[in-house]
């Protein structure tokens, strides 16, 4: 009877482990594709674009984030290549002047104040340090959103890239010997 009890306990534990590690992520995250099949790699290699060409700072120093359609339409008013992705982009968005509804993986809670200008211009932090090798990727990964919190799965970091949670910010600031008081980010 003792062995039977242990087996049952172990079976319960294994079931929970399997459900927690394999099943839970499939249940908690909802996946959806980005509106446009965008290749950072093509833009970097063929067009020679740098990150800041599209993800620019405004005149007042604030960060514009994901570029608006006007920026894309500056080059893609007419097709520059022969790919189906570009053709689709022009037909679906550029011609009807419809903004693509990009899903931002780095979206932070409303109570967080993050300054790209301070990190990039003053702190000389490279884009890849937080965003990973997005700039050389051939296609955008699907956007996986947490069904409960509403934030991207990407926030937690993956593949050696640090996450974008409060703990990650604090850890980096501690490592660099920088200030990390509450009011730095929570104004």
């Amino acid at each position, binding site marked *: 009877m003792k062995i039977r009890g242990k087996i049952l306990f172990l079976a*319960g534990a294994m079931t929970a482990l399997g459900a927690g590690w394999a099943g839970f992520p499939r249940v908690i995250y909802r996946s959806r594709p980005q509106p446009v099949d965008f290749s950072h790699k093509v833009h970097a290699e063929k067009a020679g674009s740098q990150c800041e060409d599209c993800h620019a700072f405004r005149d*007042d120093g604030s960060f514009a984030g994901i570029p608006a359609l006007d920026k894309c339409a500056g080059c893609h008013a007419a097709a520059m290549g022969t790919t189906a992705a570009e053709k689709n982009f022009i037909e679906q968005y550029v011609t009807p002047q419809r903004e693509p509804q990009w899903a931002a993986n780095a979206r932070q809670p*409303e109570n967080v104040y993050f300054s790209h200008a301070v990190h990039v211009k003053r702190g000389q932090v490279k884009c890849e340090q937080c965003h990973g090798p997005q700039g050389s990727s051939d296609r955008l990964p699907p956007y996986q959103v947490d069904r409960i919190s*509403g934030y991207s799965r990407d926030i937690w970091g993956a593949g050696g890239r640090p996450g974008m949670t409060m703990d990650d910010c604090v850890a980096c600031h501690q490592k660099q010997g920088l200030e990390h008081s509450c009011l730095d980010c929570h104004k």
Partner: protein
Amino acid sequence: MTTTRRDLLRFAGGAAFGAFLTPAPWRLITDTALWSENWPGIPRPARGEIRTKFTHCSLCPAGCAVRARCVGQQPVALAGVFGGLCPFGVTAHHLPYHPARLRQGPVKEAAAAVAAAIAKCGPRERVAVLDLRPGRTASWTYRRAMAGVRNGTYIAPAQPPVSVNLANARTVLSLGAPLLDGWCSPANAFAARDRFRLIQAEPVESRTASLADTWLPIRTGSEQALALSLAGALDTRDAAERTGLAERQIVDLARELKENGPALVIDCRMSQNVVALNVDLGSWGRTIVPRPEAPVPAAWKTAAPPAELAAVPDGSIRVLLIDESAPGEYLPWNEIQKKLVSGNPLVVAFACSREGYGQHAQFVLPAAAFPEVTDDLPAAVDAVAPGFRLATPLIPAPDGLVNPVDFVAGVAGLAAPDALRQRADAIHASGKGKLVTYADGKSAAVKEVKADEFWKALNAGACWTGDAAQPGRAPGRDFSPAAEAAVPALTAVAAELAIADSPLMSKVYQESNLRLGPDRVAMHPRSARECGVEDGAKATLETSAGQRRVEVMIDSGICPGVVLVAARPGFEPGQAKVVRI
């Protein structure tokens, strides 16, 4: 082999154990916390392009220039332009959302009641406007309106007859004036602070007293006696008895004012004795000058003259309209009440909350709060040159608010839709002074600017500064004797000026003891012993205004015989009694 209940429990126990070794429970805790941040009703900061707007803060008469950081049309941060802003000003963009904010009121009913009450006015009864902040263009409209009403009276608190020039002072004696706490423009006071020695004489170690070079703890109500003594109009021994200071201290103080000049003596209202003392010290034209005022259209000069409340006959006001929307000096309600007719007077208050005179009025009509208001700021007490500045709205006012000026003008049948523009045109027509634009920090002579451009610039947060007036002949050395009132055993004194009710500052006392809350009083240890109370004791505070249950704090920074209470609009210092519960 049958499955027993014990088997199920073993399996469940294993599952529970295993679950804790997976990310699921921990992620669910985090996700639930994040989810709760997005519940409906939780305010969200605006996102978008950042713009800068300029205006002037109208929370107090200092009228500091404000640089507003806006996301879209929403101000998200306020800062000073030339120097800092006080804590009230920094948080002013929260004010319209204060839970105590008035948004609706019985406007039509009030208008009908006012019209009916005016119709019923007897030959000796008055219709009066009480303006807490005189000198504005709105004040001129009230005066013009009251000139057109039978027995119309414009009442305003006494204003300092002179301006002070802190930049020229080397020694400043403040008789209870909160010099570093909102009495004048904070930026001006702190810019000049390093160049003068500050002596603060008052019964409480206020914030100004704690930042002064010397604090002279004097008895409540003995400020005038000290001023007279310093001018040689009162015997030093007599003054020492009244103030509680040593004779030697008064003699040394008088010597310091004479030897370390230019000296400046101030009190809250720059009273007659204080002005005369300054003249006596040779400060006329150096640290005090006549109070300037920006030009007004010639047609306005026929307006009703300002009257002090004391000059109004008792029991004569049938209709009293109180403009409390621009906070200023609150007159004690007991004094106002004496002036109302005995039978059914009508009091209408225009206010942002019910905290002030609204408690006593039949109608409280909601008025715009900064930064929703369009108003001008009269010259501050530390302005040596006339000025004209507008508080322009950073956010639109909600529907349902009343403009007190329109209401009063309507009562009097006066058409004054664009009085601010008329005033600006009169200033422009004078051709004097310069226009300073904060966006580029440049100034231009008014003569070089067209009238429309002048008006447009003022609305974009620019400021007109006139030419400083010549001091002219000094007023006579005319002292009025200080009343020798019996000093009560315990006097209630308010903690600070009630210029505004900032959500941030009103929250401080709820979370700390940095500011007195309405249910706390502070006393000197000796006074507390005499009343039989100790630190943290529950007691009843009795004053002429009524009684309240309070908690006692012991503070040696308060003179014996004084009980410090939180400021309330219209609070009058007076005899108090603290009884242990």
